[in-house]
C-alpha cells in the first residue's frame, strides 16, 4: 500500500467500524482481521469491530469516537445502505459531523450472505471496506434538500385493505383517489359468506364501509379504472388513470337496475360469481355494489357483437346508456401511493389428479363460498353440480397448490382456517352429512383460531392427516359406485385410505396477482420470486417499500387473513398521514451542478436530461442545472465532454478513489511491478 501513503488526503481522520451482525457477518467474515487491515490505512485513526453496530451502544461508539478522537470521517462496514445508511448518518450527525461525511461498506448482503467461502468473503470485505475508506476521505459536507408533500394520496385496489386505508385517510381530512379495476369496490371479501373464526357475515361488516367510501367527499372513487402511468417521486407523483368506458353515463344513472333486469344476454360470472352463477351483459356484480351504476360488458353484449338489441338503452328511464362512450384519461398529482392490489386464488385445474373441471362435483373453495352464500346461485343451499342433490358426505382438501414445489412452495396461511369454516358450514346446513378434512399440518395461529379448530373437532368432523393423492370417479370396491373417491394415506395409521364422498371442496391457496410483475414495474418497486410485493423490511417496515412514498397493504405483500389485511391498511394510511403532517421530507442532496466558468456551452447535457432540469443561458453561453428538477441520476455528469458537471456525493474523484480502494490487492501487485521498472 506504498502508493496509498502518497495519498493527498491522509490528514483526514477516519473511524472504521466493522459490524459482526451477530453471526450474520462474523460467521463468515473474519471481522477482526478486516478491522486490523483497515487500521493499516494511513487515513484511519480508529478501527473497531463490534457485535451490533446498529444497537444504541454501537452508535454511541461512533458518536464518542468523533468527539474524543476528533474523527473527521466515518466508515461502517455492515449491511446494505438500504438497511442502515440512515441510522449511521444520524449517529455521525449526533457526533457533530455532517452526515454525508460517512460511507457504508455492504459486507453482509454483498458479502457474508452471498458466499460460504470464508477466505474469499474476508478478502472481499477488506476490498469493500478499503474502497469506502478511500472514498469517504473525498466526501464533502452536504445539506439535504426539502421536498414538499402533496397531501393527496393514490390508493390502488378497492378491497378491504384499500377501503380501510382510504377511509382512515379521508376521515383524517386528507383527499384520496381510490382506483379499482372492477366495476365495484369490495374485492374478495365481498364474495365470501362468513369470516372465520367469528362466523359473522362478511357482507354485513363490509358493505357499510363500502357505502362510507362512496359517500365520503374526501374520496374520489374511480372504479372500472386502471393506473396507466406513474411519474415523479415522493411528495410529487403525477398519475395517469384510464377510466374504462362502462357505457353508462354516471351522472344520469339512478342505479334502478332496469337495464340489468331486461338485458337478454346471460353470461357465466367468472369474477364475482366464481364461475357458478350467471349475470347479465350489463350488470352490477352484486346489489350492494358501490358505485351502484352498472358496467356494460362489450365482449358479451348482443348489440356490440351483432349490432342489434339496444334493449338497455330503450328501458333506461334516464337515458344513461351511451354505447359510444370512450375510455377517459385522468391526470392528477399525489404525494403518496398505497398499493392494495390483493391476490389471485390458485387455479385448481393445474392439478389434474384432483379432477377439478373434469369431475362435476369437485368444487373450488370460491365456488363453495358463493354457493353457501345466501345471495349466491343456490340461495345458500349446499348442492351438487346438478343443482338439486344435497351431498351426504363432503371431503375438504387442504393445501391445494400450497406447500408444493410444483406450484407454490409457501403456506397460504388462510386455507386451514377457511377449510375449518367450510366444515362448520356443511355441518350447519346439512346436519346429517359426514365431513372429512384432509390436511398435512393443521395451522391455526391467531386469536380464537385454535379454539375454532377444537370446536370443529367437537362438531364431529373427521380429520385425516394426509395430503390427498388423487380424486377419482373410478370405483374399485363395493360402496364406491357413483361416488368421488378421495385417495390418501392416513399418515397417523400408515395406511392408504379411499374415502367415497359425494362432494369435494379444494381449498385453493393464495397467489400473487397474475399481473403483479407489471404492476411492480409500473410503480418502480420490487416483487419476490412468488410475485408478492417486497416490503422495505420484513419485520420493521412491513408496509413501506424500497421506493419512498409508495406503501403496500394486504395480500399483495403476501398471504394474509382479513384481520391482518385491515391492520396493514390502517398502518399504511398512518404512514402516509405522518408524511402529510410533516409537510416536507428531506431528500438526498444527490444533485448535479455545473461549473459554469468551465462550461463550453456545448449543450449535450441539455438534451440528455430526462427531467429537462438543465437550462441553457444564451448570454453566458453556459448550461445551468435547475436543482429543484434534478433527480441526481448523473447521466449528464457521465456525458459532459469537458467533465465540468459534478454529481454531488458521486463525483468522479469519489468513484475513482473507491475504485482504487476496492482493488487494493491487485493494485499492490501492479505498483510493485511499476516500481520494479
Amino acid at each position: 500500500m506504498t502508493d496509498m501513503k502518497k495519498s493527498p488526503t491522509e490528514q483526514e481522520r477516519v473511524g472504521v467500524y466493522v459490524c459482526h451482525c451477530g453471526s450474520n457477518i462474523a460467521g463468515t467474515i473474519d471481522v477482526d482481521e478486516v478491522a486490523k487491515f483497515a487500521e493499516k490505512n494511513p487515513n484511519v485513526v480508529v478501527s473497531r469491530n463490534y457485535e451490533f453496530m446498529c444497537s444504541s451502544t454501537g452508535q454511541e461508539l461512533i458518536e464518542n469516537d468523533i468527539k474524543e478522537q476528533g474523527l473527521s470521517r466515518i466508515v461502517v462496514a455492515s449491511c446494505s445502505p438500504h438497511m442502515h445508511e440512515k441510522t449511521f448518518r444520524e449517529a455521525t450527525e449526533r457526533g457533530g459531523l455532517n452526515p454525508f461525511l460517512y460511507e457504508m461498506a455492504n459486507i453482509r448482503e454483498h458479502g457474508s450472505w452471498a458466499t460460504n467461502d470464508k477466505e474469499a468473503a474476508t478478502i472481499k470485505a477488506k476490498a469493500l471496506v478499503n474502497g469506502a475508506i478511500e472514498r469517504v476521505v473525498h466526501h464533502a459536507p452536504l445539506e439535504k434538500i426539502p421536498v414538499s408533500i402533496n397531501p393527496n394520496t393514490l390508493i390502488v385496489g378497492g378491497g378491504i385493505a384499500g377501503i380501510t386505508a382510504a377511509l382512515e385517510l379521508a376521515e383524517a381530512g386528507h383527499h384520496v383517489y381510490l382506483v379499482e379495476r372492477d366495476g365495484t369496490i369490495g374485492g374478495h371479501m365481498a364474495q365470501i359468506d362468513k369470516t372465520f373464526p367469528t362466523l359473522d357475515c362478511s357482507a354485513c361488516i363490509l358493505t357499510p364501509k363500502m357505502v362510507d367510501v362512496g359517500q365520503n367527499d374526501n374520496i374520489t372513487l374511480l372504479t372500472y379504472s386502471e393506473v396507466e402511468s406513474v411519474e415523479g417521486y415522493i411528495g410529487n407523483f403525477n398519475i395517469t388513470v384510464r377510466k374504462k368506458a362502462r357505457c353508462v353515463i354516471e351522472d344520469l344513472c339512478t342505479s334502478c337496475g332496469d337495464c340489468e333486469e331486461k338485458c337478454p344476454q346471460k353470461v357465466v360470472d367468472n369474477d364475482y360469481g366464481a364461475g357458478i352463477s350467471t349475470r347479465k351483459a350489463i350488470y352490477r356484480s352484486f346489489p350492494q355494489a358501490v358505485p351502484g351504476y352498472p358496467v356494460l360488458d362489450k365482449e358479451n353484449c348482443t348489440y356490440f357483437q351483432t349490432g342489434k338489441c339496444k334493449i338497455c338503452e330503450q328501458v333506461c328511464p334516464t337515458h344513461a346508456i351511451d354505447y359510444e362512450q370512450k375510455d377517459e384519461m385522468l391526470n392528477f398529482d399525489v404525494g403518496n401511493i398505497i398499493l392494495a392490489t390483493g391476490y389471485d386464488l390458485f387455479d385448481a385445474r393445474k392439478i389434474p389428479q384432483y379432477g377439478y373441471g373434469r369431475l362435476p362435483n369437485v368444487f373450488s373453495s370460491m365456488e363453495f363460498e358463493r354457493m353457501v352464500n345466501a345471495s349466491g346461485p343456490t340461495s345458500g343451499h349446499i348442492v351438487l353440480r346438478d343443482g338439486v342433490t344435497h351431498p351426504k358426505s363432503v371431503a375438504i382438501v387442504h393445501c391445494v397448490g400450497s406447500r408444493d414445489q410444483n406450484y407454490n412452495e409457501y403456506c397460504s396461511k388462510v386455507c386451514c382456517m377457511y377449510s375449518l369454516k367450510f366444515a362448520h358450514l356443511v355441518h350447519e346446513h346439512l346436519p346429517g352429512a359426514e365431513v372429512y378434512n384432509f390436511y398435512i399440518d393443521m395451522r391455526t395461529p391467531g386469536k380464537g383460531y385454535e379454539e375454532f379448530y377444537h370446536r370443529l373437532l367437537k362438531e364431529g368432523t373427521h380429520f385425516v392427516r394426509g395430503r390427498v393423492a388423487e380424486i377419482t370417479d373410478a370405483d374399485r370396491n363395493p360402496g364406491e359406485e357413483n361416488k368421488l373417491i378421495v385417495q390418501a394415506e392416513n399418515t397417523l395409521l400408515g395406511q392408504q385410505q379411499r374415502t367415497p364422498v359425494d362432494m369435494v371442496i379444494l381449498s385453493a391457496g393464495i397467489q400473487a396477482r397474475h399481473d403483479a410483475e407489471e404492476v411492480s414495474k409500473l410503480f418502480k418497486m420490487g416483487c419476490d420470486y412468488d410475485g408478492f410485493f417486497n416490503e422495505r423490511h420484513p419485520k420493521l417496515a412491513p408496509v413501506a417499500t424500497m421506493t419512498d412514498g409508495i406503501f403496500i397493504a394486504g395480500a399483495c405483500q403476501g398471504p394474509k387473513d382479513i384481520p391482518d389485511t385491515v391492520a396493514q391498511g390502517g398502518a399504511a394510511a398512518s404512514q402516509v398521514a405522518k408524511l402529510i403532517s410533516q409537510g416536507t421530507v428531506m431528500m438526498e442532496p444527490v444533485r448535479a451542478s455545473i461549473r459554469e466558468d468551465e462550461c463550453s456551452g456545448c449543450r449535450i447535457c441539455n438534451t440528455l436530461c430526462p427531467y429537462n432540469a438543465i437550462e441553457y443561458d444564451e448570454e453566458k453561453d453556459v448550461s445551468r442545472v435547475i436543482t429543484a428538477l434534478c433527480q441526481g441520476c448523473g447521466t449528464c455528469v457521465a456525458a459532459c465532454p469537458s467533465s465540468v458537471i459534478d454529481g454531488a456525493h458521486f463525483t468522479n474523484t469519489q468513484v475513482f478513489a473507491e475504485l482504487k480502494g476496492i482493488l487494493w490487492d491487485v493494485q499492490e501487485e501492479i505498483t510493485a511491478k511499476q516500481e520494479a521498472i
Partner: protein
Amino acid sequence: MTDTLTSRPPTLIDKIIAETPGKASNLYACLQCGTCSGSCPSGPDMDHSPRTIFAMIDSGLEDQVLMSNTPWYCVSCYYCMVRCPQEIPITDIMYTLKRMAIEAGYFREVDQDKAPEFSETFMDLVENNGRSFELGVVMRHHLRYHPLSAVKLATGMGLKMITKGRMDFTPTKIKNLPQLKAILKKAKELGGAA
C-alpha cells in the same frame, strides 16, 4: 448439492442420498405428507408405506428399512415421484434400497418375497444372451423357485402364449456377446452393487 448445514458423520439417509442419482438430497426435505403412500398402487401390500420408510430412514433404522418388503413392492409407476411436493426422486430411492438390501444380504429374510430372485434370474439371462424375453424369465424363474406354479403356468397361460406363437424358450443371442460381457465385467469391478 445439498443445503444441509450439519456436518455430522454420514447417517443412513446420507448414504442413501449419495447412492441415488438425481435430486435425491430432496429426501432431507420430506414433509411426511403421505402423498407418495396415498398414490402408491401396491401401497396396501407393503410392510411400510413409502412415507413410513422415509421416517424410518431419517431415524436411522437401517435393519428394519432394508428388511422391509416396501422397495420390492414398488412397481416403478412414478406417481409418487411426480406428485411429491418436495420433488423427491422416490422411485430411484426405492431402487437404491433394493441394491442396499441385496448387498446387506437382507432380502433373504423377507421370505414371502421372490423379487430379488426374479431380478437375478432376469439378470443371468441378459448377461448370458444380451437379450431377455418376459416369458422365458417367467418360466425359468418359476422352474427355479416355484416348480409347482411353473407347471400351472405352463399348462395355463403359458400354453396359450405358445399356441399364439408369443413365447420362446431360448432368447436370441446378440452377435457381439463378448463385448457386452467385457463391458459388464468392467462395470461390476467399478462398484457392482449399490
